[in-house]
């Protein structure tokens, strides 16, 4: 018999309730289970391995002034039941450690290193002790996300103790690349251990664009923090804005008008379409296929101009409001969207036909940069990269927001896991997205586009998520007094996917790295924050 959502939650509580110190069921979709930190590993393993949950996000907070403790929240998503469960542990300042779960759940690796850097909470037994977010010239005992750290102060720089992967051996050559690159791309340092032109190992050092967005957000009013959320990343601006707005709406427990939900879907899909079109063109740049590059950028430009016409911003900034949209979209504009999409669809079909029938292009993409299903599952890879490896995750289907449960679309999967599969997924998803836009516009109802967000009870947690072009973006928000942000954690799709790039590259040759990297198309800014 299929379990209902309520039964499933009850079942979980029945099985691990005895480990719980307290259970908070105030949010129907997200039960918070507080456990003793020594039971953390057992509970997490139970939720992930036995119940098929996946680690959605993990947040560390400094609640010393509220509860007297630091807290960690491990949020697990259960796709089958469209529900979340949060495991919370309290950590005493006198003993700021907790047992690491990374050895068993590799997906927790970065999260645990991050709370060590930013909050000074050390994961005991973590396999990798290197700093993640803060680089080696940051003083060792300064933790920026602690409430007693003033964001305006300058941290003194210390002698760099950054350590990189070193490769040894007679035939092994080490190739350091970046963080400054020749093209106009974001900074990241890559270290290849190669034999001849074949890559043995890749170590990626990121977080060069860490701007402390989460710290700046603390104490900000929600309206202002929305503007910040839109600027986490350039090409996922809409997805981040909606995620943040949904987190606030979740905390405030309000429902936004139906028209706003439909319009948000239209805008979110427009973002996906322009990203995917541009990314397919960009993959061509990895092997110098000029026709693909120029047509890709031409079509992307056409879509960006459409965005500008509708919202006044090429990257769709400034239209999302807490509780809906700042302004309505006129029926003329909606007609223009449909017309432009039809035009783009036609040209894009031509482009894909040229691309997929080009022998060299297909040869360069097929079997290059394979990410296996096992690797994708262990690292909890999301988005296009996951679906290309046969991992069926799409939070539009598994945790529907807006009105994604009211429109028909397929989650496109492939099992090859190579560059070609990732390109194909994008090509197919563009068609699905165009279908969603058409349905949303056809079903659109008249009415208001915004509801008011009232005062939210302090220390309420809200989670908002959207499926961006790169995968799910998850915003975890704890509201403070006076509707201000107390703690804000952005977990973008790229945060999950970057470790996967390092696994997909070994075994390939060095000149294939750019095309592999482009096929994942990860932004650095929304990973580094």
């Amino acid at each position: 018999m299929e379990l209902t959502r309520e039964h499933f939650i009850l079942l979980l509580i029945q099985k691990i309730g005895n480990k719980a110190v307290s259970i908070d069921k105030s949010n129907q979709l997200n039960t918070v289970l507080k456990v003793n930190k020594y039971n953390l590993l057992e509970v997490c393993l139970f939720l992930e391995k036995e119940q098929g949950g996946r680690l959605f996000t993990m947040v560390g907070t400094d609640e010393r002034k509220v509860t007297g403790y630091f807290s960690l929240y491990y949020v697990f998503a259960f796709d089958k039941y469209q529900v979340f469960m949060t495991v919370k542990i309290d950590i005493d300042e006198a003993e700021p450690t907790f047992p690491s779960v990374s050895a068993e759940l590799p997906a927790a690796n970065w999260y645990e290193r991050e709370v060590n850097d930013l909050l000074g909470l050390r994961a005991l037994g973590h396999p990798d002790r290197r700093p993640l977010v803060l680089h080696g010239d940051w003083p060792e005992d300064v933790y920026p996300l602690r409430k007693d750290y003033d964001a305006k102060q300058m941290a003194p720089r210390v002698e760099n103790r950054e350590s990189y992967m070193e490769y040894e051996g007679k035939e092994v050559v080490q190739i350091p690349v970046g963080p400054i690159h020749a093209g106009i791309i974001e900074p990241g340092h890559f270290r290849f251990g190669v034999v001849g032109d074949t890559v043995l190992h890749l170590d990626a050092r990121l977080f060069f664009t860490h701007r402390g967005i989460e710290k700046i957000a603390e104490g900000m009013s929600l309206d202002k923090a929305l503007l910040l959320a839109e600027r986490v990343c350039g090409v996922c601006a809409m997805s981040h804005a909606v995620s943040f707005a949904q987190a606030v709406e979740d905390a405030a427990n309000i429902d936004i008008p139906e028209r706003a939900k439909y319009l948000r879907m239209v805008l979110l899909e427009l973002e996906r379409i322009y990203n995917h079109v541009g990314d397919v063109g960009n993959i061509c740049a990895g092997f110098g296929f000029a026709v693909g590059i120029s047509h890709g950028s031409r079509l992307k430009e056409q879509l960006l101009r459409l965005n500008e016409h509708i919202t006044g911003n090429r990257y769709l900034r400034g239209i999302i409001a807490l509780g809906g949209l700042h302004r309505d979209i006129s029926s003329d504009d909606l007609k223009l969207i449909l017309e432009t999409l039809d035009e783009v669809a036609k040209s894009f079909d031509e482009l894909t036909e040229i691309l997929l029938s080009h022998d060299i292009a297909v040869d360069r993409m097929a079997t290059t940069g394979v990410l296996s299903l096992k690797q994708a599952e262990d690292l909890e890879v999301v988005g296009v990269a996951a679906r290309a490896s046969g991992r069926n995750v799409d939070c539009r289907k598994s945790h529907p927001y807006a009105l994604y449960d009211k429109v028909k679309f397929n989650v496109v999967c492939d099992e090859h896991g190579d560059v070609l599969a990732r390109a194909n997924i994008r090509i197919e998803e563009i068609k699905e997205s165009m279908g969603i836009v058409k349905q949303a516009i056809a079903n659109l109802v008249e009415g208001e586009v915004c509801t008011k967000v009232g005062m939210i009870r302090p220390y309420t947690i809200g989670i908002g998520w959207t499926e961006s072009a790169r995968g799910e973006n998850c915003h975890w928000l704890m509201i403070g007094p006076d509707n201000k942000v107390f703690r804000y954690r952005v977990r973008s799709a790229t945060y999950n996917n970057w470790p996967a790039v390092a696994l997909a590259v070994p075994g390939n040759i060095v000149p294939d790295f750019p095309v592999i990297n482009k096929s994942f198309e990860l932004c650095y800014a929304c990973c580094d924050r």
Partner: protein
Amino acid sequence: MLEKILLALTQVILCVLLAPFIQGIIKNAKAKMQNRVGPSIFQPYRDLIKYFKKDAVISDHASWFTRVTPYICFTIVLVISLMIPMITLSAPLGFASDLILVIYLFALSRFFTALTALDAGSSFGGMGSSREIMLSAILEPALLLSALAILLQIGTTKLYVAATAINSAPGLVLQPTYFLAFIAMVIVIITETGRIPVDNPDTHLELTMIHEGMLLEYSGRYLGLMMWASQIKQLLIFSIFISLFFPWGMSAVANDIVSLGLGLVVFILKLVCLGVFFAVIETMYAKMRLFQVPRLLASSMLLSILAIIITVVK
């Protein structure tokens, strides 16, 4: 004697001045075919002027090799430019205009470039030179074979003799050996000039570079000289191709202004056509996997050998 010296000087200066123009034509033609406005055909000149005005920064780890190589490479292409018939059917350094010598002079310049790329100890330079040397090990015999397929028929290794022979008997070109050698040589030229599908001259992706990878450590006038030398090299390779496959229009005498002028115009026209031709190929293809390039060159060699067999059997 005087007019010979004058002609030699003209030919060198012509090569040096015309090379960036041909580069500009190719870049602009590519842009036009890719739906872009593209840079002006005179952009390569502006780039060179810019490089020569800039300071040259050289790695502390680099030896005198790095400083000397640009001059060596530039000198080598200047010397070669005297060995190839361009406007007239004779070459100024006719007695030395042996194709084998030309090919190995190119190899000499490649040797210095590859060695210098290792000099500063940067990993990109090492990658670039190891790839370049790997390719050139196959490229040189392929170039030699494709040229020999034609030269064997005429019975010489001197380029100007071959050009004269083909000029006076155009029927030669219609033979199947010519056709085979033509395709073989086109493949070789693409590789030798570092173009798609072998190398991408316009890429900024350091990890995929072959020829450009070796120049990454250069800046200022050194970079300018290296770029200029490779543009001249491209023009020279085109000229070899022209003198082997369509030498018609070259002036047979060295003292008639009208026929020299006509030769010059025809020569430039042929270069422009070749440039556009290679721009079309670059637009149609994508860069192939690095380790498949030897296969492409092997197919070029196969065609040449076929052509040679046909000649020998006849």
